[in-house]
């Protein structure tokens, strides 16, 4: 190993090569961005578009029944949305709707998914196959088509509430279904020759179809996660528990499920995230979530670029928040030494 004490030639020095490659990458990136920016600016100039972020303060002037709560940006308090409110407040009302859909959808999807997942593990062949069919059909068809089916093919085909097609009621009128939506705990009254619901908790057809469609679709994925998580526990765990005298139910409750839960929770969180992002398909059924409100704002104000930047960043923030919460949960669940 006789090496002259001179420095390594530049073209063989790993560090120099690395730095050069990065500089080259940055230069290309900057050049690309700058080129794109120039092109955008030129065409914006040509079409007379100017960015103006101040328009968010202008009055929105549109009303949508589904837009209910928003934040008063002057006093930073909750208030009911009204058409005089600003564009920004309209979009916040949309964000609230997105969150509402996400939470309700997640709760429903989790319940359904757990049921189907357990059915997938059943020793009863018929129950097992039925659950498998449920999962396969839902996972192998697009969510948007399912949503259209739920909205146009199910919820809008429900009885109108007129004398010839009376509303569907459950639990003695506690739950009422018509083509205007689902009402829980209201009072049926007759108006304009139609039976309508006053008071109670009312959900429009758009909202119901969206929540049901999202929940049913996601439940199929959750079912497979639950099944996989339980099957991933080594057989020796069940055997050890049984040989200690625990019966099947106790072994499941104290040994298998607590471990399965640790495996299930991370992918489950990803499904919650997916459901939240998928709620943007509300635009297909016309429910005023964040994206739909933004589209309305964009078409009224002709400020599409600004509106879309805002809405994209809002989704990104929502996703990152959910991811951060998931990482916290994951860290809390980690076993010491594992």
């Amino acid at each position, binding site marked *: 190993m006789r090496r002259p004490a001179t420095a390594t030639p530049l073209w063989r020095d790993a560090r120099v090569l690395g730095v050069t490659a990065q500089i080259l990458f940055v230069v290309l990136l900057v050049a690309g961005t700058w080129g794109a920016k120039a092109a955008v600016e030129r065409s914006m100039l040509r079409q007379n578009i100017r960015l103006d972020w101040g328009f968010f303060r202008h009055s929105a002037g549109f009303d949508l029944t589904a837009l209910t709560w928003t934040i008063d940006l002057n006093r930073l308090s909750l208030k009911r949305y009204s058409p005089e409110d600003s564009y920004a407040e309209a979009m916040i009302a949309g964000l609230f709707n997105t969150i509402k859909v996400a939470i309700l959808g997640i709760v429903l999807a989790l319940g359904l998914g757990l049921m189907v997942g357990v059915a997938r593990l059943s020793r009863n062949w018929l129950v097992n196959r039925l659950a498998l069919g449920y999962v396969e059909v839902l996972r192998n068809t697009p969510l948007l088509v399912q949503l259209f089916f739920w909205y146009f093919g199910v919820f809008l085909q429900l009885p109108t509430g007129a004398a010839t097609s009376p509303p569907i009621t459950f639990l003695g009128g506690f739950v009422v279904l018509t083509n205007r939506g689902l009402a829980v705990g209201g009072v049926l009254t007759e108006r304009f020759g139609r039976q309508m619901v006053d008071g109670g908790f009312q959900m429009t057809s758009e909202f119901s179809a969206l929540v049901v469609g999202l929940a049913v679709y996601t439940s199929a994925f959750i079912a497979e996660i639950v099944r996989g998580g339980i099957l991933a526990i*080594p057989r*020796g*765990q069940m*055997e*050890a*528990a*049984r*040989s*200690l*005298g*625990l*019966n099947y139910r*106790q072994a499941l409750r*104290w*040994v298998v499920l*607590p*471990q399965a839960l*640790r495996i299930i929770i991370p992918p489950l969180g990803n499904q919650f995230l997916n459901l939240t992002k998928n709620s943007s398909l509300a635009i297909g059924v016309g429910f005023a979530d964040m994206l739909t409100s933004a589209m309305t704002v964009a078409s009224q104000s002709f400020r599409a670029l600004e509106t879309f930047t805002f809405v994209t960043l809002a989704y990104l923030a929502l996703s990152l928040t959910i991811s951060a919460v998931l990482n916290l949960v994951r860290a809390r669940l980690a*076993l*010491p*030494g*594992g």
Partner: protein
Amino acid sequence: MEQSARRGGEPIILLEDVHKWFGRLHILRGINLAVWPGEVVVVCGPSGSGKSTMIRCINRLEAHHRGRIVVDGIELTDDLRNVDAVRSEVGMVFQAFNLFPHLTALQNITLAPIQVRRQPRPLAEKVAHDLLARVGIPDKAHAYPAQLSGGQQQRVAIARALAMQPKIMLFDEPTSALDPEMIQEVLDVMRGLAREAGMTMIVVTHEMGFAREVADRMVFMDQGVIVEEGTPAHFFTNPKEDRTKLFLSKILH
């Protein structure tokens, strides 16, 4: 048989013409074995000879297809009540430890006493601490399995089985998954169990030094049958069957 003549009384474990199949594979081909209370039986034999399957049948982790298995006067059938009764009398230690990774050593030990025997928690924990001291790791009560060495894990597993106060302990190759330097600490615990507590034990193992020292009886299995059995002195110095001789020559160097 010679054993019953020598000991008298009822055997605590009795296997009569036990057969088992895995699909079309005939894994147990007519096992006859009787074990008396307080006896330590060491089972050895080449892999695939059915040793593990046999002791897994004794607490019905596997169901046998033909013949009779009677444990402490209870016959193992499809009756679930009998199975549960037998399992709470028979402790089992596995090759892969099978500790519950989400519970601490202490919780591993107290789970069954609290859930099955309905013992109050303070009592169960006191017993668990005593057992941990007995297996030589009194300071590891609050460690999780992943924080313990293999030898320590296996000793917790033994303590876990003992917490149910079993009359019989089954050991399924308890030291095969351990690093060499940890084998002794586990064998020491088993030795103490046999000598001081007079526990009835069936041990599947290839640790012939341990067998020679502790076993009351050696059982050699091959191809699903018991080929030869006898006292260690007799078994190691003067085996009758050729298959036993061949096996011993391989394993004793």
